[in-house]
């Protein structure tokens, strides 16, 4: 029998044991964003016809939290194991690169799902949001958190210090999420920024996710799906290659 289910379960238990920090805290942050931005900007911006700014904000904030936490889960688990040395306990058993990848990836998606659900449950009490196409929403939710989970695996394998993970979060993930149209519809942007946003893969994940709720989006959900899917495949392939080669894990 494979060791994969156990590693997956261990990764779930790991974040769930500290769920105040790993789930409740990001949900609270998202709600604070929602309260503040919707208060300041409500009535001044209408992203889509018939959709209030606060409603517009909910899926974007949920997705942003999911993406950030998917990355945090795999990257922090790996870097902690590497620094404390207990990574050997998963390197000594007969776990294949695919099993290792799958377990860390799925645990990242699970944490993103827990955070996303938390944000929605809490946000729905304040701002009811329609769900036009639940399957699209689920597809983008899973794909987006999978993509960030895979990126977290790569960062966790590569990094040697916690600072390097923090640098990933502060200088890559934060700017990409904040500039992806979480807080605004990109059609309100000047042409230069609009063009730049189209190069940001996070934009497609959030835009596609939002389509699942409002049935309206800045670009076609199929385009978003193709780009998010392509990026996910590329990062997964890269992460698997790193695991196969033993890069920074096996000397």
């Amino acid at each position, binding site marked *: 029998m494979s*060791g994969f*289910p156990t590693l997956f379960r261990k990764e779930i*238990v790991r974040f769930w044991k500290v769920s105040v920090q790993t789930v409740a805290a990001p949900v609270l942050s998202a709600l604070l964003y929602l309260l503040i931005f919707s208060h300041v900007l409500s009535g001044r911006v209408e992203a889509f016809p018939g959709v209030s700014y606060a409603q517009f904000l909910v899926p974007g904030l949920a997705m942003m939290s999911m993406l950030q936490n998917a990355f945090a889960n795999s990257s922090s688990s790996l870097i902690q194991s590497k620094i*404390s040395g*207990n990574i050997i*306990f998963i390197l*000594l*058993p*007969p776990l294949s690169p695919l099993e290792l990848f799958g377990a860390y990836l799925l645990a990242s998606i699970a944490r993103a799902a827990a955070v996303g659900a938390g944000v929605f449950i809490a946000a729905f009490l304040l701002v009811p949001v329609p769900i036009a196409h639940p399957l699209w929403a689920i597809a983008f939710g899973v794909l987006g958190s999978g993509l960030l989970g895979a990126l977290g695996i790569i960062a966790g394998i590569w990094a040697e210090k916690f600072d390097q993970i923090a640098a990933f979060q502060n200088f890559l993930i934060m700017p990409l999420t904040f500039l992806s149209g979480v807080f605004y519809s990109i059609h309100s942007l000047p042409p230069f920024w609009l063009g730049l946003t189209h190069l940001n893969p996070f934009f497609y994940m959030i835009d596609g996710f939002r389509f699942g709720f409002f049935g309206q989006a800045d670009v076609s959900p199929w385009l978003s799906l193709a780009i998010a899917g392509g990026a996910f495949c590329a990062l997964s392939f890269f992460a698997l290659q790193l695991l196969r080669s033993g890069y920074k894990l096996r000397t």
Partner: protein
Amino acid sequence: MVAAVQVRDVGKSFGATRALDGVSLTVGQGEFFALLGPNGAGKTTLISALGGLARADAGTLSVMGFDVRAQYRQARRSVGIVPQEIVFDPFFSVRETLAFQSGYFGMTKNGAWIDELLERLALTSKADANMRSLSGGMKRRVMVAQALVHRPPVIVLDEPTAGVDVELRQTLWKFIRELNKAGHTIVLTTHYLEEAEQLCTRIAMLKAGRLVALDTTANLLAAFSRRVLRLRLVSGSLPPGIAASAQLDPTGRHMVPIDDFSQVADVLVALKAAGAAIADMEVTEPDLEDVFLKIMRHEDAPAAGRAPP
């Protein structure tokens, strides 16, 4: 019968450092085998290569006939390694740690064996304690249990008794001896040479990545070490025939090497003839420390001759 561990021409470099340089050795099933050598000799690198933590640049390694690269799943199932450094996952209790470790090997219903391991390693009372709260010795025991949780036929212990109290050392060796009697192959590294001498039937010595000795403990002791008659004189001195081979030990006793006990009588006769009187004497048996130092020094000699001033 397939060898428990087979190492063939294994080489491994870290940058300019040659950690392993053409090491070959075979450990038979059921052996209690010691891997000795000074720090930095390559013992841990060899063990890491065996467990797949390090990858050899050259040569092949196999466990129970399974190549550690091509058949890594079977090879890793066949070996349990207790690493040298104390490491643990602070998120979990002792029992969780063992249940997860067992699950990684695909053994999810292993509670009875885990309970037995806890019992045998005196961890039962700590089963539900968080790993963080355990003392160093306790953590070491958990690591031993982790290595045994999948019942591997080959057990490798990398300095398991470093910094561990006497009681645990004895409990541990008692348990490991039983496992060995039950058919498990044991490979052990230690700096406590008396442990290796008492426990292991065969010994390999590594120095600077090279194998410098590989033989049964008995042969090594016989070849490199002799019994010594230690004596202190009240009066007189050693006759020239004996003085030639004798040395002084740190307490000022004369050390006369002998091959067997019959030579004691010869020495006594010669001393009496020379008019010397003995204050005290004893015969000390050869020990592994002596062998170890001789082999390591002998290996130094040619290198020292070539060393620049």
